[in-house]
């Protein structure tokens, strides 16, 4: 490798870091928006569960999904909004993509850790003394093991990368193009479903799924669409116009 190539790589890392730091310009607090949404949902659940007499039942709540949805939307909006400004003024698309994705993935690692800690607390406090399995709604995170951390974190990374992809796509194709693209994707999905029904393959698929453990799906197979979304995000973004 020539020294020029090394220089270029170092400068790309530097530029990506700049893009990352740009996201803290308005307020560092924005980075924890999804956490605030999650804690809000948790507080509401605590209130509802302590007010009602649900404690006798085996209580659970799907409120933890809020952080996944919030992370998806905030990443989407952030990429969509920052692209025009940053790339318009002087950043390269490459630096922008790397910087934005790095921040978003670090965010999801942090959130994964927070979920993991709360899950551990939940177990230690007898589900908050209310039988409220908020941080373990589908029983897939039963212990304080690295596997539990991954069950939380890998899907978070997936929604994050998907958010970058959606942000890039909505930027590149505009509102109308993005809608058309969504319709096209849905049609394609419908076609696949119809095709599966036509060749009568549902049983085989259901059988395959039942042989995978849920945690294998959440920590392993999710990586496939994650990689696809990451690659697709870059391909879409590299031709987007600020």
């Amino acid at each position, binding site marked *: 490798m020539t020294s020029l190539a090394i220089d270029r790589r170092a400068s790309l890392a530097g530029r990506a870091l700049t893009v990352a730091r740009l996201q803290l310009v*308005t307020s560092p607090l924005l980075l924890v928006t999804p956490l605030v949404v999650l804690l809000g949902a948790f507080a509401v659940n605590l209130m509802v569960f302590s007010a009602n007499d649900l404690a006798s039942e085996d209580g659970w709540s799907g409120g933890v999904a809020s952080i996944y949805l919030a992370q998806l939307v905030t990443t989407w909006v952030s990429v969509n909004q920052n692209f025009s*400004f940053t790339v318009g*003024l002087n950043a390269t698309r490459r630096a922008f993509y790397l910087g934005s994705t790095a921040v978003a993935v670090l965010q999801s690692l942090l959130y994964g850790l927070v979920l993991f800690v709360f899950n551990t607390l939940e177990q230690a406090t007898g589900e908050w003394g209310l039988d409220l399995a908020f941080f373990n709604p589908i029983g897939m995170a039963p212990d304080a093991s690295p596997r539990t951390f991954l069950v939380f974190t890998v899907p978070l990374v997936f929604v994050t990368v998907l958010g970058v992809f959606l942000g890039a796509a909505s930027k590149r194709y505009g509102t109308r193009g993005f809608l058309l693209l969504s319709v096209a994707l849905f049609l394609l999905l419908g076609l696949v479903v119809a095709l599966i029904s036509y060749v009568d393959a549902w049983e085989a698929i259901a059988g395959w799924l039942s042989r995978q453990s849920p945690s294998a799906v959440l920590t392993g197979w999710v990586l496939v669409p994650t990689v696809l979304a990451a690659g697709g995000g870059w391909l879409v973004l590299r031709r987007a116009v600020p």
Partner: protein
Amino acid sequence: MLARTCFVRKAQRYPDDYRVKHALRAAALLFPNWDEAYAQSLVDEFRLPRSRAIKKLSRGQLSAVGVVIGLASRAPLTLFDEPYLGLDAVARQLFYDRLLADYAEHPRTVVLSTHLIDEVADLVEHVLVIDQGRLIVDEVADRLRGQVVLATGPVDAVRAFAASRTVLHHTGVGPVARFTLRGEVDAAARAEAERLGVTVTPVSLQQLVVSLTTGAAVPTAPKETAA
């Protein structure tokens, strides 16, 4: 290369939650040569409200933010794409003054695209005129200025003077003709003009551009780019 470039476009977009101070903070991160003190003094001079949301700024204030970023970035290559939109005459003059003064202290390449040609005529060193996507002038500004003149006088005299030159444009009222001519006017030519009773005056850069572009099929507002 891109890191040393600053491109301020007329439709520069800012994230929705940005205030003026955020845009400056972001620019400070993006540009290695950023001069914060200079940026702050420009903000004061353009009377920009630091804490106002960018999307609530007037068109002129929005342009002023771009001007501040472009100037304070001190990027070796700075491009301004019609940076004056919505700026009043006072603010435009302020921009031209600051641009010239800062350029003198920190020489760099500035590309400025504009429709207000006469306003920047004294600033530019090199002129590029693009007419309907075609580059029709690519010339050092000083040389361009001498190249086109306005000859006024009696019709026959002006015709005689124009014989050896390209006529770009001609108008006339009764016995008096006004010809816009292309071609160097040296001492001998001036003497000839005096003998014929023709007054020769240089045209402004804007008139020059107009006369060069009106020959086109559809006259459009010319765009001047200068570096």
